[in-house]
């Protein structure tokens, strides 16, 4: 017993320097994030100090007060658009994933190919096309319009995730449901969907994050409207008052919160999503 403890202790004491290097590398990589936090707490009069203070010694909440006073409507809009994008994406992609994984549709291969190709279209192209269409439909500067546009960022990826995940559901289970008289819709709703909870979580996280972070659709389709997302809030902040960097960085910190929450609560889903297809229960 003591032997085991000693070896374990030895192993860790032999690798402590690797941990040290790892910490240094991580600190370098995350320095910009720290700097954002540092500046968000810096007082106006210290902002142009040379050299800049490495720590917020006279920390102020002025920047965050500005967020509460000015940016809350933008944050609310982004939240609504993000949730709308999640609902639309899951509603479109989950049935498609089920069909591609389990129902062997004729032409399914072609559809998967089109979905892969669709992911590669540059956002600026989509934005210009949407702009032309929304202009004639009167959908510019509208929340539903932005939800639809943002969902194009996530739908192809979501179908791929659902297809990969649902392929892993045992066929016998679906066969048994069929024998019991359940139709395709019933099987999908009562068996496939409850079993695909992890895929739903992964897809929802990414759909929300991408919609929350979207700048190109927001700036082309929602600019100047009554409901603008937080990315535009920050962008206009930079344009209008580039003196109050504590307010800008405080808004940036608040805009990063969803990413932080996702990293803490759902890190395994994120890694799974990055290497999509490696998704396993």
């Amino acid at each position: 017993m003591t032997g085991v403890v000693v070896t374990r202790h030895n192993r860790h004491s032999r690798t402590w320097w690797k941990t040290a290097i790892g910490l240094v590398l991580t600190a370098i990589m995350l320095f910009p994030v720290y700097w954002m936090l540092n500046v968000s707490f810096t007082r106006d009069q210290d902002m142009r100090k040379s050299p800049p203070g490495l720590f917020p010694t006279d920390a102020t909440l002025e920047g965050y007060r500005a967020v509460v006073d000015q940016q809350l409507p933008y944050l609310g809009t982004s939240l609504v658009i993000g949730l709308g994008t999640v609902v639309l994406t899951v509603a479109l992609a989950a049935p498609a994933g089920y069909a591609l994984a389990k129902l062997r549709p004729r032409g399914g291969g072609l559809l998967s190919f089109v979905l892969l190709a669709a992911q590669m279209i540059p956002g600026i192209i989509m934005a210009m096309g949407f702009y032309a269409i929304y202009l004639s439909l009167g959908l510019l500067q509208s929340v539903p319009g932005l939800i639809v546009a943002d969902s194009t960022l996530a739908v192809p990826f979501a179908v791929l995730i659902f297809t990969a995940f649902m392929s892993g559901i045992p066929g016998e289970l679906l066969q048994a449901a069929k024998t019991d008289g359940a139709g395709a819709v019933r099987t999908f709703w009562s068996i496939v969907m409850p079993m695909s909870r992890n895929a739903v979580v992964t897809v929802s996280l990414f759909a929300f994050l991408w919609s929350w972070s979207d700048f190109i659709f927001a700036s082309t389709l929602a600019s100047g409207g009554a409901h603008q997302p937080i990315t535009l809030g920050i962008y206009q902040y930079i344009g209008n008052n580039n003196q109050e960097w504590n307010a800008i960085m405080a808004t940036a910190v608040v805009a990063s919160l969803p990413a932080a929450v996702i990293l803490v609560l759902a890190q395994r889903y994120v890694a799974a999503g990055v290497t999509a297809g490696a998704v396993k229960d």
Partner: protein
Amino acid sequence: MKHTTQLPDRRPLRDRTGAATAAAPSPARTTARRRPSSQQWAAWGFLAPVTLYLALFYAYPLYRNIDLSLRNYTVRSFVQGDAPFTGLRNYLTVFDDPTFAPALLHTVVFTVVSLVFQYAIGLALAVFFTQHFRLSATLRALFLVPWLLPLIVSASTWSWMLNSDSGIVNAALHAVGIGPVNWLTSPDWSLTSVILANIWIGVPFNLVVLHSGLQSIPAGLYEAAALDGANAWQRFWRITFPLLRPVSAITLLLGLVYTLKVFDIIWIMTKGGPADSSTTFATWSYQLGFGNLLPAFGPGAAVGNLLVVAALVFGLVYMRVQRKQGLS
């Protein structure tokens, strides 16, 4: 750019395509004939929403974009929709534009330099993090942060860090005796600055994908090589690097497709300036269509379409490579 990939070699065979399982017992054609038609109806019922969606929100905007690039649009005719057809004149305008050559050059430099550094740093970190040490998994997770942050957050943070007078980067350079650099306001440095920020954003993706690729290299190979007296450097170049080639190809190709279309970072940090010194096809297209008081939708769409062609060419190469690896 935010992107994800599918690793061909990490998925069980049955997951690869629905058809793989279906076709296994009998030739594909008889399987197709035996598929009950009611199931076909159900399948396409489930696929109908997404198919309609693809047609309405991918195909139609693409079509509108091609249409835009072939007509002479003004603000008036844009609203009324009666712009005269001018064939390829917008494309000729674009080719003749003095911005064309610099934009092409910047797009290539931005893409290649970003990819090389993202891949090299990502691979070095991935190899480092495959070793077992305390906090390894936690630190690797923290490396994801730049990838998760909204691009506007990263871009504005970098803007302030690179600020000529009050930025921390110039302060650090000053501390080691180097004079201030006008990172964002000098034509000599603006492209370097946006590449720097883009590398930072792209490293996590390379790290995660390459790390997961490293997991599938059998540990026994390294042990055997170590017994034969190979040092760490030789083990990397003789084992890790060759065996990682398929995953590397996928990572780089997908990175290429997505780096080509990077827009947010450049636009937020420099707007492609000063004097077009950091403009790429993506920002130029936006500049033409939305950046001026008098929009030039036709040429803007033409530039965008050139970008689509480039992205799709490399995208097809990517899909070919991925399929070939899936089969082997």
